[in-house]
Each structure stands twice: as C-alpha cells, then as structure tokens.
C-alpha cells in the first residue's frame, strides 16, 4: 500500500475513535472554537475535540512539527481534510492566530518568536486579534497614525485602533504602527506583537447594525512593548501587512463555500413555505428568478474555486482568478441573504422575541452582518482596483 493510503487508513481510524459525536454535526454559530484564555465552552466536547486535535498538531496540519504543528505534506493535509469532511467533523479551532499571524511568523518571525507564539496558537491557548484599521485609516490603511517610538529596549506605543475583531475576548493583538513619521507612508510602518493585558491597552466593543458586537475599538496609551516583539525589520512592516491581508482575503473568500454555516434550510424551501407553490414551482415567478440567479452564481463560483484548487494541485501557478475571490464571494454572500429575506417576507423582519422563529431571527441578523463582508479586509471597490491594476494592467 502506498504511504498516502496507509496515512488515510490510519487517519480514518483515529478520527473515528477520537471525534466526539456532537463534533460530527453542523456547527451552530455559538459553538465555534477560537481558543484563548477567556474561552468559554458551551459544549464541553468542543474543548475535548480541540485538545485531541491539537495534541496531534492537526489544528494546523501543515505547520512544522517542531512547533507542535502536524508537519503534514500538502497531500497528507488534503487526505486529512477529506477524511474529516467524510464524517462531518467540525473544524477544531479557528481564529486569526491560525489563519493570519501563524503563516506570517513562519515566514518573517524570529526563531524566538515562533517558539513563543506558535505552540500557543496551535493548542488554542492564546487568541489573537488584528490591530490594523484606525478611525482615519480604513481603505487607506497605510495612512495609519498609531505611533511607536523606540526607547532603548522597548517601543512606547500610542494610538487608536478600530474594527479589532473580538479584541475584548482576545489575549494578544498584532498591530501596525508608525515608526518613522518622516518616511513615505508605506515605508515608516512596523509590525508589533502586543499583549492585551499590558498596561495602557483597553478594548471597547462597538454595537453594529446587526446588534452584534464582534468588533472593538482598541486604545493604546503609553504601552511599553519590548523591542523583541517587532516582527521583521523596523519600518518594513508594510510588506508583512500586505502578506497577512492576502491570508485574510483567502479566509473571507471562503464565505458561502460548502461547509460554511448556512441558513437552516435551502432558500427555495423558505420561499415555498412563504408564498406557496404551483406545480412544484415557487408561486411567485419574480422571487423564483431571484433565487435562481443567486444559486446559479453561487454554483458557478464554487466551480471557480474548485478550478483554482485543481490548478494548484496540478502545480500550475495561482492564476489571475484568485484575485477575484474576495470580491465575488462577499458580493454573493450579500445577495444570498437578500434572497433569504425576500423569500421569507415579514417573517424575516423580526429583531427579537418569541413570535419569530429563532432560525429566522438568526438569518435576519446574518443579513445585517453580511453587509460588512464587502467592507472588511479591503472593500469591494479596493478589490476591483487591485484586479484592474494587477490582473488587467490598467494604468493608475
């Protein structure tokens, strides 16, 4: 038997023995695991699953084993993913440590930084958040003003970050700061790692149109950051920032993909329940057409993601199409929730209360949440600029 087949057989046996029953069911939105010192586990099996997977390094299958990662090759990681999907395993751990900071530390971090941070990310012990945007620096991220002044063995940091996702639940934050205000705006930026527990760091949740508070403002007042917490070179943080954004967009581009949390039933079932059916068709032809447009675009986009994955497996360079994923996925996700709202009618207009189905209430809040998709991680307009410049070669 080929080595990969042996790995598959062993993986199947291990998952069967170790994945708790409730971790093989679709994940409710409030049972995700992002780890961290302040994590609360509504379902104790979430923690059990996290511990078993992280002990094998399979929360980060391809990270090097020397830091506690799985040390798997690309082929083995794909086998693991396939075997997990086959029995419906939930992802044991998510968050910005895994999806964004880890890959950046592996590429740009010092050995000391990797040893300090990677094992804690892999085990889900430390939760990270992202200190990028500022009130005056949104799409123009490089216009950020948070100052870091090197004073001997530490930086003194002062500034105001915004849209720091889950900062109030996070243990640490990776921040872009200005270390040279005299340089051109892209050339005076550095990348710092800061502990949320340090004196002078304060997070305040922001209530959004959805009623959720997943984003915060984070204030940094005279925070002393050891110089060893600089990632990469001083004033060279923009390169790292861009690299990390690529990882972020890849993550957001996964929205609406198979396996992502979806409405509790297909949108056409919601529509049939709400407006009735004639000969098996949704009785309202305009609504039916809206749903077809949405589902067909989603179908074609999923095929595009698969085409990109197959090209990458075949060893072809990532085609220009990868530049479109963030833009297309997020615009699609908005039309998806618009279709859900259109289908449900006034049942989807509830804010809270017992007279509304809890699934409908959740869909309505997710509809509002989806509006952020085309703003966060680079707006749709910024994404179109990137495609126009890098892919189409249109002039500035």
């Amino acid at each position, binding site marked *: 038997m080929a080595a990969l087949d042996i790995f598959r057989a062993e993986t199947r046996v291990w998952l069967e023995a170790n994945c708790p029953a409730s971790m093989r069911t679709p994940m409710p939105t409030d049972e995700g695991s992002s780890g961290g010192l302040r994590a609360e586990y509504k379902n104790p099996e979430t923690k059990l699953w996290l511990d078993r997977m992280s002990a094998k390094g399979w929360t980060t299958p391809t990270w090097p084993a020397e830091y506690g990662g799985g040390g798997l090759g690309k082929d083995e990681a794909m086998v693991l993913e396939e075997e997990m999907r086959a029995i419906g395993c939930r992802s044991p751990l998510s968050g910005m440590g895994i999806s964004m900071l880890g890959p950046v530390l592996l590429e740009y971090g010092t050995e000391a930084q990797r040893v300090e941070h990677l094992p804690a990310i892999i085990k889900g012990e430390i939760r990270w958040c992202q200190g990028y945007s500022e009130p005056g620096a949104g799409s123009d991220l490089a216009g950020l003003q948070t100052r870091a002044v090197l004073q001997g063995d530490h930086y003194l940091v002062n500034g105001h970050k915004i849209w720091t996702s889950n900062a109030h639940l996070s243990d640490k934050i990776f921040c872009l700061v200005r270390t040279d205000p005299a340089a051109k705006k892209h050339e005076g930026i550095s990348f710092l790692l800061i502990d949320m527990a340090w004196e002078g760091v304060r997070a305040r949740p922001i209530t959004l149109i959805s009623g959720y508070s997943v984003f915060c403002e984070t204030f940094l007042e005279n925070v002393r950051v050891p110089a060893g917490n600089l990632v990469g070179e001083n004033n060279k943080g923009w390169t790292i920032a861009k690299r990390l954004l690529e990882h972020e967009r890849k993550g957001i581009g996964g929205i609406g993909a198979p396996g992502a949390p979806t409405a509790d039933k297909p949108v*056409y*079932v919601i*529509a*049939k329940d709400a407006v009735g*059916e004639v000969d*098996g*068709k*949704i009785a309202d032809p305009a609504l*039916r*057409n809206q*749903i*077809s*447009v949405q*589902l*067909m*675009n989603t*179908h*074609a*986009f999923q*095929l*595009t993601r*698969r*085409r990109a994955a*197959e*090209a990458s497996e*075949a060893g*072809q360079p990532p085609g*220009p*199409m990868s530049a*479109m994923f963030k*833009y*297309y996925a997020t615009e699609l996700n908005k039309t998806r929730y618009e279709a859900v709202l259109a289908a449900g009618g006034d049942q989807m207009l509830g804010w809270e209360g017992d007279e509304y189905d809890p699934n409908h209430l959740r869909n309505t809040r997710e509809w509002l949440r989806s509006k952020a998709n085309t703003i966060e991680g680079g707006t749709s*307009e910024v*994404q*179109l*600029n990137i*495609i*126009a410049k890098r*892919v*189409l*070669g*249109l*002039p*500035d």
Partner: protein
Amino acid sequence: MALVLNSEAQLVRDSALEFFADKSPVLMLRKLRDSRDADGFSRPLWREMADLGWTGFLVPEAHGGSEFGMVGLGQVLEAAGRTLAATPLLSTALIAASAIDLAGNEAQKQKYFPGLVSGDSIFALALEEGAHHNPNRIATTAKRDGDGFVLDGAKRFVIDGHVANQLIVVARTSGGQNDRNGITLFMVPADAAGVAITRSAMIDSRNAARVTLAGVRVGADAVLGRIDGGADPLEAVLDRARAGLAAEMLGSSSEAFERTVQYLKDRKQFGVAIGSFQALKHRAAQMFCEVEVTRSAVTAALAALDENANDASLLASLAKAKASDTAYLTGNEGVQMHGGIGMTDEHEIGFFMKRARVAQAMFGDAAFHRDRYAALTGY
C-alpha cells in the same frame, strides 16, 4: 470531473486557437457578409477542419471518429468564438453527430457518419417553431402513410439550414402541442420534394434559415430513434448543443473583453489613458470576474457531458445561462467603452455584440435556463 484541461485537450486548444487566428480572423466574416456569399462559410476551410479530425470528435471510432468528446470539441468551439468564425461545427460536428450517435441505428450510423466525418455532408436541426426556444412545443406533424410518414410544418432559426444536405426534423407523431410524448426525429434530405428552405439574414451575419415542409414523404428508415420517443434524445442533444454554444460564447466574450481592456489602455482623453478612470476600471474588473466564472461553468458542463454525470443537464443550463449573461455584458460594455468608434461598422467590436445577441437566444436564453435550473433543482 476535471476543471483543468489535460495535455491532449490543451494541445487541441492551442492548435484551434492558432488555426482560427491564422485562417479565419473576424475579417473573414466581414468578407462573407459584404460579398453576400451564397454559402456564408468557407468550404475549403471546413474541409481543413474535417482533416484535423474536429468533425469526428463525437463520432465513435468504429465509424471513423475519435470519440475525443465534448471537452475537446468545446476547445475548438471556444477558439472559433474568439474570431467569430462561421462554421458548421455546431450544426454538424456537434448536434448532428450527437443526434445520430445517441438516437440512430446501425444502418443510419453507417449511412451518415462517413459524410459527416469527411466534411462532405452538412446537417441542420430543424426544431424551433416559435419566437422563443421551446423544444416541446411542436406543431409540425408527421402522419403515417403506408410504410412511411408525411411531414407538414414550418421551422425557423434553423442553424446552417440553407447549406445543409440533411435536415433533422423534430415533428409530432402523437399527442397535443405541448406534450413531451409524441415527438419523433426524422432524417429528411434537404432536396426532398416539398421541402422549401429560405435563408434568413440575421444580425450576426451567420447562417440560419426558415424551412417549410409541405407534404414531405419519407420512408420508415428516416425515423431517428423511437417513434413518439424523440424528446429524451433531443434533450440530450440540446444539452450538448447548449454547452458547446456556451463554449463558443465564452471565446467571443473573452475576445471582446480583452480587446476592450486593450482599448482602455490605448485610447487617450483629457491627456490620459481612459483606463485610468475608476468608473471604467471597476466595470472592466467586474467583466473579468464574470468571464472567469463563466469559464468554470462551461468547463464543468463539458466534462459532465463526457462523463454522463447526473448533473450534466443542470450544468448545461448553468453554462448557457452564465455564458448568455456574460456575452451580453461583454458585448454591450465593449461597444460602450469603445465610444463612438464602437458604433461604426468599420470597427469589429460591434460584430461581437451582434453575435452575442443571436447566441443568447439560441437553444434557450438565460431566463429559459434559470427556469430549467429551478425545475431540475426542485423549485
């Protein structure tokens, strides 16, 4: 199902792109149009295509073909779409080859495949009767007459109808006007008594015709497939036609889009390239996305048809709907972004918009296929 081409399909693609760029640029279509060419396509070029084996891609090896399949033929059609090449590829190499292969008996295969593969025979599917694609609404009748049948009716939008040697006529042998049952396919020689064919001059300068059948007598051996059971093979043939046409449209859309982006770089106004204006950049970037997404749908449909996958019909409708919407977008944005020059007959961008409009309607427009996608999905 592979969404990335294997090396054989890539080879076909490369040679087809080169072939059409060299031998059949858009200028060729203009010449055929301006000279009011009686055939509307180049017979010597068609012979070369047959020699390259493209006519035999869907024909079994036992009958002189290569069985290379829809993915391969899709590459050729896409390349043909890039230069708006007028060829009988769709009518003959795709539709007729499929109909004869899927519905025909051994004697019919032996009778028709040699001429089809060699390029000597051109075939045309005489299906449509109304202004909109509707394969079940057939009023053309075929009444039993001794051992054979007598056909009466009127067909329109018959692709390559006036150059065809053989018509594949969709007629009703029983049932009401919208019944799926009772449809039968007939092989009718174009020169049979009672067949009248009139060429239709359409906006895309490609070949189509109206066909009337008045007391046309055919023998029992003219029946292709089962009597009353023509709807199923017809649907399978149409799904291939939709995916193949979607591939052609993808080629035309890609070309129109790339030419438009080039124009945005070349054309200067207010002292700068107009491609520096964000209002145009964003629309160009959106077109890029739609072309890429369409490519995935088309490739998936072609591959699914080759594999007889369960979702082949669903994917054929997805491909045709996306290709239609994208062709509309690239054609109209192409003309708009070219400005005044785009309105002139001298410039070629208008050819792409006109072809797109015809191809959109052919074998079901985007609305038809959204409806079909919904029905196949169960809503």
